[in-house]
């Protein structure tokens, strides 16, 4: 009996031991070899059957949850979830929901929706929210910048339209020249539209290049004028020079105005104001103006008072036309004193000549005048017998003005006048003969 009991006990112990081994091996496989994990409930004693079923159910949930976790970890957001009553997979479903929402948020951010905020997933949320905030700020900054650029572009476009309109409509020729290399960077008209002759073009550029190379970068605007000479005539220009930056170059903008007509008009006005119409000599007004200026400037010069002899006689006997010829011949003669001398007709038969010391030395003035006078005498018109029809001659008085002079111009002129009369008186007899 005891032996029987012992035998039964040993058999039970073995059954329990086999069941324990089976469950141990099953649990080990669940952990390390889930694909091989199986538990044969028939090896379990009857009293352990329910426990075995619970163990299979438990391990099944664990393995399903693990498979689900593996799929999620691989980014398979559409992975089939375990059975709904699998309690272990609930946190994974929670995570999956967060990841799906995060995916949508990332897509929204990619579309430019920077309002997206993550309010779960701890430190990642802070990083994500910082990112969207920075993207938002950057977009705002870029939008502001783009707005500014748009405004500037609009302003530039308008300015450019204005610039082109002005450039195209003004008659001035604007040429931009590279200061270093002399390249022509811009012209508002073809130069030939402005130049009187195409042959001027090279001349023009060489003049402008010289200006450009003599201007320092950043120098203020300067103004000048110049004249071009060609076969067809003179062309006068005024030029304003601006030192500028042009498309990365140190450049000079030359604004050229053709002042030929203006210059000619000015010359005409000057002639009308300062010239004696008949002789072309300067008039009394201009002569006295120069006299005052030279005296004021303490120049050393000779004042020559000239009176034509016998003009009234010529006018009365031979007519004013012959008188005018006589006057013109005297005027031409006086021009021979010096090319720089100022010959002015004071009126009727009187001339005044002003000659600087450097042009005609004071000690040779009288000698010079005597020679001219002799030429004039010799130029008198002749009859068929070679005899003078009427005599031609001048009387003159000379006063030297230098830096020590303190007399006013009027006194100096009177002094020259007196000397002229003395000369006339001295040579009266000679003329009568």
């Amino acid at each position, binding site marked *: 009996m005891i032996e029987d009991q012992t035998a039964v006990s040993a058999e039970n112990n073995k059954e329990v031991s086999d069941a324990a081994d089976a469950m141990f091996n099953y649990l080990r496989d669940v952990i390390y070899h889930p694909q091989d994990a199986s538990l044969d409930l028939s090896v379990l004693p009857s009293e352990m059957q329910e426990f075995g079923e619970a163990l299979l159910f438990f391990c099944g949930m664990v393995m399903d949850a693990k498979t689900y976790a593996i799929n999620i970890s691989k980014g398979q957001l559409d992975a089939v979830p375990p059975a*709904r*009553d699998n309690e272990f997979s609930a946190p994974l479903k929670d995570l999956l*929901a967060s990841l*799906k929402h995060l995916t*949508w948020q990332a897509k929204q951010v990619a579309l430019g*929706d920077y*309002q*997206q905020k993550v309010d779960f997933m701890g430190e990642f949320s802070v990083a994500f929210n910082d990112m969207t905030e920075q993207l938002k700020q950057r977009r705002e900054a870029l939008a502001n910048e783009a707005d500014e650029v748009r405004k500037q572009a609009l302003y530039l476009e308008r300015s450019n339209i204005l610039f082109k309109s002005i450039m195209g409509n003004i008659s001035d020729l604007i040429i931009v020249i590279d200061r270093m290399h002399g390249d022509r960077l811009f012209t508002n008209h073809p130069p030939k539209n402005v130049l009187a002759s195409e042959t001027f073009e090279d001349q023009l550029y060489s003049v402008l290049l010289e200006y450009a190379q003599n201007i320092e970068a950043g120098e203020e605007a300067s103004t000048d004028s110049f004249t071009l000479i060609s076969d067809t005539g003179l062309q006068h220009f005024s030029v304003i020079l601006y030192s500028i930056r042009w498309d990365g170059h140190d450049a000079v903008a030359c604004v050229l105005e053709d002042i030929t007509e203006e210059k000619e008009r000015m010359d005409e006005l000057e002639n009308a104001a300062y010239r004696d119409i008949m002789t072309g000599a300067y008039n009394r007004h201009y002569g006295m103006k120069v006299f005052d200026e030279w005296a004021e400037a303490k120049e050393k010069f000779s004042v020559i008072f000239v009176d034509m002899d016998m003009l009234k006689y010529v006018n009365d006997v031979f007519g004013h036309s012959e008188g005018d010829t006589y006057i013109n011949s005297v005027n031409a003669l006086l021009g021979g004193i010096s090319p720089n001398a100022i010959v002015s007709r004071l009126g009727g038969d009187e001339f005044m000549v002003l000659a600087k010391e450097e042009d005609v030395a004071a000690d040779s003035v009288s000698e010079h005048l005597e020679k001219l006078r002799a030429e004039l005498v010799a130029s008198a018109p002749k009859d068929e017998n070679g005899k003078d029809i009427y005599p031609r001659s001048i009387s003159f008085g000379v006063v030297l003005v230098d830096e020590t002079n303190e007399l006013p111009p009027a006194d100096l002129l009177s002094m020259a006048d007196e000397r002229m009369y003395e000369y006339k008186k001295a040579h009266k007899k000679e003329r009568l003969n």
Partner: protein
Amino acid sequence: MANIFNKDETIHVFKWENLGNIKEGRTDLGEEMPVLVYRLMQFTMLDVLTKDFGPDKANEYFRRAGYLAGSEFVKNNLDTSVDFSVFVSKLQELLIDYKIGILRIEEFDDVTNNIVLTVAQDLDCSGLPITNETVCNYDEGFLAGILDVYTGAKYKVEEIECWATGDRVCRFNATVTG
């Protein structure tokens, strides 16, 4: 004598103003109450309606009530003229402020305008025992009301996952039907 000013008023016709001035009325207890009380009312109501009309009809009443609530909620709290992303963002904030739940979008179909969205920590169901049955019928109507008012389209919202079905969020398919 009857109050002539209130002759057309009845508590049975919903108006947002009829929710009353809670702050003024509950000076000591305040404007909030435990979720337990909300659910107590919901589930006892569901119980009564189910007994009288059957579960399908009871769920339908809950859905319709939710739709009315969602529509009025948007009309009285949100700007519907803004872009969708801005609208969703404001709606999310508001649902959190009112402690209704955490709304998240999972998918949005640009072509069909169909949406998959979730509500976490939902007022109606989070923490319920698992019954393998979606229970957020009120939320289905609530979300449909919100989407209809904002989009002008007609949405059908169906709960596909729920705390009560073992999930941790309630997941809704919102489908345009007209």
